């Protein structure tokens, strides 16, 4: 028969030692489970919804027993108090960054994290096609979101993130640069793009957004103060100049060239062209077959490079575009059909003008497009 070892040990142990051990254990448990950032709940409580049926621009408190959740509360949204001012940080204005995404670029996400507008005022919205490529992009995006929202530093975390999968067939299967820019494919491609933008916009805008920043998934470099800088001009629609960095074989060094040609001032010739077109035809920019002689913002970079120079525009590009939420609330959207022979972002500028909102451009304020 074995010895009753337990009792032997117990006898040796001092009661005070045991108590100390117990207290130590409790301390360890508390430190293990207590949240590492106790300020988190306090910070987000203001903008938090209590029910999952709530505007997606705010996070919600997840209930561990969703089945027992009562009927949602009656919520008042005072849109009279939603301000849109040139000083959005001081007024705590909420910004919605919308990105239609087909491919995920790490540089895009890194650049997004570098934006120094308070992240707790930023909601991100993405829409991705339901294709093989879209699935891959979604997976990559979700991995980055997980890293930032769950493990990243508190100041990097965004208020809320919405991922949508689009409900219509993508027009062009290939996202290759050459295929994507073929003139024949342009109308179908931009129709789908417009629908994606509208789906994203009208399901995420919500009642608290002050500014909407359209930022394409292939914008890989922008000033970190992008939102504040664009908002400071207090224009209903404002678009920076989109350039692309490339390796110049002639000079053997990195150089840059204009990328987005959709920001322009209208010309007589373009209007005459439009007058001869059928109601379903669209005018396109940047194609030799269709010389419109519009004044393109891409070529308006001035020598002195005054970054705050603003010019009125008739068409805008969507690679980076800051819009007052009221413009969208009034109904200005991206027409997925020929609207005054214009489509998507250019049609959007036209529709905004019809509603009394003037688009503006910043020729010397640059953002950079990814180079394939």
């Amino acid at each position, binding site marked *: 028969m074995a*010895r009753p070892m337990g*009792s032997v040990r*117990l*006898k040796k142990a001092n009661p005070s030692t*045991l*108590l100390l051990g117990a207290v130590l254990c*409790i301390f360890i*448990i*508390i430190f293990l*489970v207590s949240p590492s950032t106790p300020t*988190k*709940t306090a910070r*987000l409580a203001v903008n938090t919804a209590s029910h999952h*049926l*709530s*505007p*997606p621009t705010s*996070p*919600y*408190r997840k*209930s*561990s*027993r969703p089945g*027992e959740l*009562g*009927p*949602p*509360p*009656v*919520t*008042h*949204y005072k*849109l*009279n108090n939603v301000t849109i001012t040139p000083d959005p940080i001081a007024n705590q204005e909420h910004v919605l960054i919308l990105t239609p995404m087909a491919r995920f670029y790490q540089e895009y996400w890194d650049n997004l994290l570098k934006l120094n507008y308070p992240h707790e005022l930023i909601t991100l919205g993405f829409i991705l096609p*339901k294709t093989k490529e879209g699935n891959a992009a979604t997976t990559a995006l979700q991995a980055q979101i997980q890293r930032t*929202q769950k493990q990243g530093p508190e100041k990097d*975390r*965004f208020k*809320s*993130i*919405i*991922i949508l*999968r*689009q*409900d219509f067939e993508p027009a062009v299967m290939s996202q290759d640069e050459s295929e994507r820019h073929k003139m024949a494919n342009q109308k179908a491609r931009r129709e789908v793009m417009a*629908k994606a933008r509208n*789906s994203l916009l*009208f*399901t*995420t*805008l*919500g*009642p608290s957004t002050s500014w909407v920043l359209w930022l394409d998934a292939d914008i890989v470099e922008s000033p970190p103060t992008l939102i504040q800088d664009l908002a400071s001009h207090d224009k209903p629609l404002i678009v920076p100049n989109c350039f692309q960095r490339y390796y110049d074989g002639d000079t053997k060094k990195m150089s840059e060239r204009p990328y987005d040609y959709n920001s322009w001032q209208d010309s007589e010739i373009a209007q005459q062209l439009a007058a001869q077109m059928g109601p379903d035809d669209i005018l396109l920019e940047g194609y030799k077959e269709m010389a419109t002689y519009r004044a393109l913002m891409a070529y308006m970079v001035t020598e002195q490079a005054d970054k705050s120079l603003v010019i009125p525009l008739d068409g805008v590009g969507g690679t980076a575009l800051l819009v007052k939420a009221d413009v969208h*609330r*009034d*109904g200005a*959207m991206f*027409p*997925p*059909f020929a609207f005054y022979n214009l489509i998507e972002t250019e049609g959007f500028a036209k529709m905004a003008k019809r509603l009394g909102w003037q688009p503006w451009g910043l020729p010397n304020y640059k953002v950079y497009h990814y180079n394939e």
Partner: protein
Amino acid sequence: MIPRHHSSGFANGHTREKTFDFSPHRLQPRASANNNRHRKKLVARIGAVLFVVVLVTIWLWPSSSVASLVSFGLLASGTDLELETVRYYDLTNVQGTARGWEREERILLCVPLRDAEAHLGMFFSHLRNFTYPHHLIDLAFLVSDSKDQTLEVLSSSLEELQADADPKQPYGEISIIEKDFGQQVNQDVESRHGFAAQATRRKLMAQARNWLLSAALRPYHSWVYWRDVDVETAPFTILEDLMRHNKDVIVPNVWRPLPEWLGGEQPYDLNSWQESETALALADTLDEDAVIVEGYAEYATWRPHLAYLRDPYGDPDLEMEIDGVGGVSILARAKVFRSGVHFPAFSFQKHAETEGFGKMARRMHYSVVGLPHYTIWHLYEPSVDDIRHMEEMEQERLAREKEEEEKKKKAAKIKEEFGDADTQWQKDKQAMQDSKLQAKDGVKPVKAAEAEGVAQGNKGAAKAAAAQAADPGAAKVAA
């Protein structure tokens, strides 16, 4: 060999009684009874301390995971503070099908309101009666530029609805959006329907609708239903009825009841129509910002209107393709709005608001239909003309009553008069008979008797004249 550890008996089965026993382990040191008691006490104390500490922790931080860790998650509290910041939606799941209530498809019910306090009671009775599962319907109200108690009445009615004891009554997400557009547009019936104010008014209405939709549409909505607050009568099953048709945009016919003297009923919503050649030609002649509005002599469009095609005994399922839609009751797939169709607050193909919405939906190749024989009834609010007419009618009625009163009086008087004449006649008759009897008393020659008769007749006439003089009323009758 001796079994050393056998204490109960010998190997041969003999029990050991009162024999001296050497058992080696008995020589080992053992915990004394005293020591044992001490240990038990200590364990109990530590247990008690631990228990108290855990209780205090749970009491102090009810939501912290200490409790769940200690209780292995069995004691999870309801208010977990974990925040969900990422939402994922697949829009292919919210396309909207013909039998949405079976697939648990969510509907967004949008109601624009302004100074509508008086109609809210009626509207909430409709809400309570909808047969579509209430928890699948999200309500969104836009209260703008209201000078009455619309907001207060709305909030309290909604709170009441959400707290209803019947689990089938409460609705889904409820948003009340307050936004004043600073419109100084008069909302009374007359100025609302005047021709000159139409274009501006329709553009402002469109703006309000767009603000409401953009603030309330969510990625989980399959359908959007627009409903005016002043609908008086509509089937409880209207959502299912419209949904069954499986169209992108669908509207019922809207009529309104009228007082008897106005014909009993009348087409109300003239904004649901099919495009006509005349109207298209007219549109080409108009200015870019002009808005064609229906139901006014200024724009004769000769369009076939849904409202005028109603047959009370027609098939309620009959569909009709339309180009402009009225806003009283629109059911549309959410994807129509998601893809960008909205209520133009500018002149879109010479139309604005709901008519422009219909045009834009058609432009994007969505199906837009109306049901000519499926009717809902709009509240009848008398117009200024109607009120004037009603006042006239009231005066007429009063005049007629007065006249009747007088007639009655006259009749009574005549009756009185006749009654007097009757008694007079009786008296006269009596008198005549008396005099006859007197005449019969004396025997007279026939001639004399005849003369007497004539004299008597004269006498009677004289008597009647005297009576007339005595009664001026009777004289009036005679006159």
